[in-house]
């Protein structure tokens, strides 16, 4: 099948789906909000807090529609896609409130439908259906694979694996790779061994002291129900440029499985979910990258570039808008802002702005609205100042999770005041290879240490419903994402 024919069919399918969506939207205004972020960025917590905030409607002074009292109520409704798991809002909220534990992380796509009854500013009564789609950001990194051949993919990921920051982690995989050749006959056992070693290497890159972000293919780390299937049993191998795959060779088998991965895994996600989004929020854990060091920060930047390339951003003509979904607002959020004193929030935002600079420039020309914000969907700390000798440090107080910072320092029960380090005034200093900063893996210890804190104590009211969760700028994020549709 020629590729232009394939892409034509794909576009036609997308157009048909979009037309269907538009027809439904006429009867029932709907907004599809995508929530994504690389793993541990806090997607689940953000989604839970967002739904809770909309349903409770307290402590949201900057979210205008809510503050003006124009939102009567928001209620959960059965979701439209029967094949997608439901986002377990109640379960996650209970974990957060009762056990004071952060909920399990997002390992697959999930969906939740909220219907918001509101009054437009000029009076009347309307309802807006909000479909919230929560999916791992790693899947976005797969989207560029759609345009790549197996040879491109192999060359790229082996280049990454041999980079200095990753080479030690990839050593077992690279050793196994050196012992084989593309032309050997295909052998399932060998393919499985290579795929397992490759997956181990990707998983090792995610450890806290390294915190790498650019780790395609995404499903290797989050296989879901595809675990063990041939579409996930491949690995990049060394190929000489322009080499043809002899039939029955290892090369041919790997290439075929890579194509299957694209067709069966990546393309359906793109068509059924990603291409139909209206709004998108990308959560980014900048602090974890700062914890880990310059290599992690550079890797995060590269991963964000990959994510940004996936967005079909920009407003089109009205005819185009009928057949083609476009994401018209994207919010980049640096999560866990409560791990910092609020005097540093502006600096955190500046660092984030620097990370997504290219997307901002591109969006300006297409008319997409892009904003960056430092937020905490659930605020786990309060602020303080610590005076030690003659120096005063802005600090935060919270209950650090057990098992961090050495073996016995924190038991997960006692409160601690933490000064996490000064963020630089000028974000360029972090990205400058000559200045640099030290990560956790450095012998002398890192320049920054952002601890993980336990969730705050939240009371329940007489009916057993948890009260509003404390947050930082969640209301501003909501106002940006939903405000214009609730006018």
């Amino acid at each position, binding site marked *: 099948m020629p590729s232009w024919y394939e892409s034509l069919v794909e576009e036609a399918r997308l157009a048909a789906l979009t037309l269907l969506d538009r027809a439904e939207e006429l009867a029932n205004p709907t907004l599809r909000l995508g929530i994504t972020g690389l793993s541990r960025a806090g997607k689940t917590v953000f989604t839970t807090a967002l739904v809770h905030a909309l349903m409770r409607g307290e*402590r949201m*002074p*900057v979210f*205008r529609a809510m*503050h*003006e009292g124009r939102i009567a109520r928001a209620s959960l409704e059965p979701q439209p896609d029967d094949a997608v798991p439901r986002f377990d809002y109640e379960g996650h909220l209970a974990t957060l409130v009762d056990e004071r534990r952060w909920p399990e992380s997002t390992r697959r796509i999930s969906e939740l439908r909220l219907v918001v009854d509101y009054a437009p500013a*000029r*009076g*009347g009564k309307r309802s807006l259906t909000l479909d919230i789609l929560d999916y791992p950001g790693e899947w976005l990194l797969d989207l560029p694979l759609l345009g790549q051949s197996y040879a491109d993919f192999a060359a790229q990921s082996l280049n990454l694996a041999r980079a200095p920051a990753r080479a030690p982690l990839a050593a077992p995989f690279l050793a196994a790779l050196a012992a084989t050749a593309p032309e050997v006959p295909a052998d399932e056992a060998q393919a499985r061994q290579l795929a397992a070693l490759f997956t181990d290497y990707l998983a090792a890159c995610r450890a806290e002291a390294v915190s790498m972000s650019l780790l395609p293919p995404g499903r290797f780390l989050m296989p879901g129900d595809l675990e063990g299937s041939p579409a996930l049993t491949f690995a990049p191998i060394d190929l000489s440029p322009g080499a043809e795959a002899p039939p029955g060779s290892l090369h041919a088998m790997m290439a075929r499985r890579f194509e299957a991965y694209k067709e069966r895994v990546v393309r359906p996600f793109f068509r059924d979910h990603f291409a139909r989004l209206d709004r998108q929020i990308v959560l980014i854990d900048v602090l974890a990258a700062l914890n880990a060091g310059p290599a992690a920060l550079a890797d995060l930047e590269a991963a964000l570039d990959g994510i940004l390339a996936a967005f079909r951003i920009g407003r089109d003509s009205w005819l185009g808008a009928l057949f083609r979904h476009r994401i018209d607002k994207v919010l980049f959020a640096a999560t866990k802002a409560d791990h910092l004193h*609020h*005097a540093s*929030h502006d600096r955190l935002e500046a660092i984030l702005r620097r990370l997504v600079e290219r997307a901002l420039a591109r969006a300006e020309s297409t008319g997409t609205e892009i904003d960056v914000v430092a937020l905490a969907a659930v605020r786990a700390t*309060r*602020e*303080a*100042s*610590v*005076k*030690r*000798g003659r*120096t*005063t*440090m*802005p*600090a935060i*107080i919270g209950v*650090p999770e057990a098992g961090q*910072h050495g073996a016995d*320092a*924190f038991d997960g029960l*006692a*409160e*601690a*005041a*933490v*000064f*996490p*380090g*000064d963020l630089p005034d000028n974000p360029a200093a972090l990205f400058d290879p000559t200045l640099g900063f030290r990560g956790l893996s450095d012998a002398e*210890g*890192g*320049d*920054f*240490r952002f*601890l993980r804190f336990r969730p705050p104590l939240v009371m329940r009211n007489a009916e057993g419903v948890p009260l509003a969760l404390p947050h*930082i*700028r969640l209301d*501003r994020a909501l106002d940006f994402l939903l405000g214009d549709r609730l006018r």
Partner: protein
Amino acid sequence: MTDKSPASGHRRPQAFRLDDPDVVVAEDGRPAPRGAIVVTPSLAVPEAEETPPLPAPPPSASRWTTLFWSGLGGLVSLGLGLAVSKLIEDLFARADWLGYTGLAFAALFVVGALAILGRELFGLMRLRTLNALREQAAEAIAKDDRKQAEAVTRELMALAKTSPRLFRARTELAGHLDAIIDGADLVRLTERHLMAPLDSEATRLVSDAAKRVSVVTAVSPRAAVDLIFVLLTAVSLVRRLALLYGGRPGALGMFRLFRQVIAHLAVTGGMAAGDSLLQQLVGHGIAAKLSARLGEGVVNGLLTARLGLAAIEVTRPLPFAALPAPALSDVASGLIARKDSEKDEPKQG
């Protein structure tokens, strides 16, 4: 507890357990022993962030003008003093009791004049505070500066303390002050809370005045009567608006306020004329066909409405950022009924 390196220039990350014996939490109220690490939980910003200083505003009046007015003022007061002392001397020359009576009156005059002067100065200062507040708020929005915004909000809340109808809004706002909200958002929040009820009241005041002026002009027997009426209404309108938004203008304050209103009108008049010129012409044309006096009434009413809008912009302590500024059609609804009915129609879709 973790890193004992001295904090010099570059500060290393550090963590302190609150149950550590070396750590003292200030909210317990215990005095801190020497060498202890003191933790003060707070929401206040501990250290000042440096912001680039703004260029100094140009001097408001020229030095020669100041010289002229101080000279003239000095001469006039000297002349007045001389006249009074001469009068009292003359009175003493005629009879002692007349002289003492004159002296008593002079003392009353001085006390009264001082009190009035003090009130005027207070009014002027209040006016200056409001103007400065508006500039600060605009700056806080532009720079998204939290600290400045908080200062603006606190000052406005202090100003609104005397207004019982803002009590609820003020309490709510005080609750939000502790949350982490960005500077620009905080100013907009303050505006929505404190200004919204005042704005609707101000719109009503202007609208009433415009209606009154147009009716009186239409029925008044002489041109002189409606001229005086228009002037009086304008003065009282500006005064009531200033009172509404927290100003306490005396005579001097009113004079300065009026000057600002007229200046503002001159700047914005041209722009505002563009949006509703057609309505005015049509309204005036039809009314003038019916009767010349009716046409004049409409014109005078529109003029008052314009003046009122300019006065709102000048007296309001916050710029219109979150709320829409009232338009001519909002206050001149009684005069231009056609446009009004168009606006109230709910737009579907």
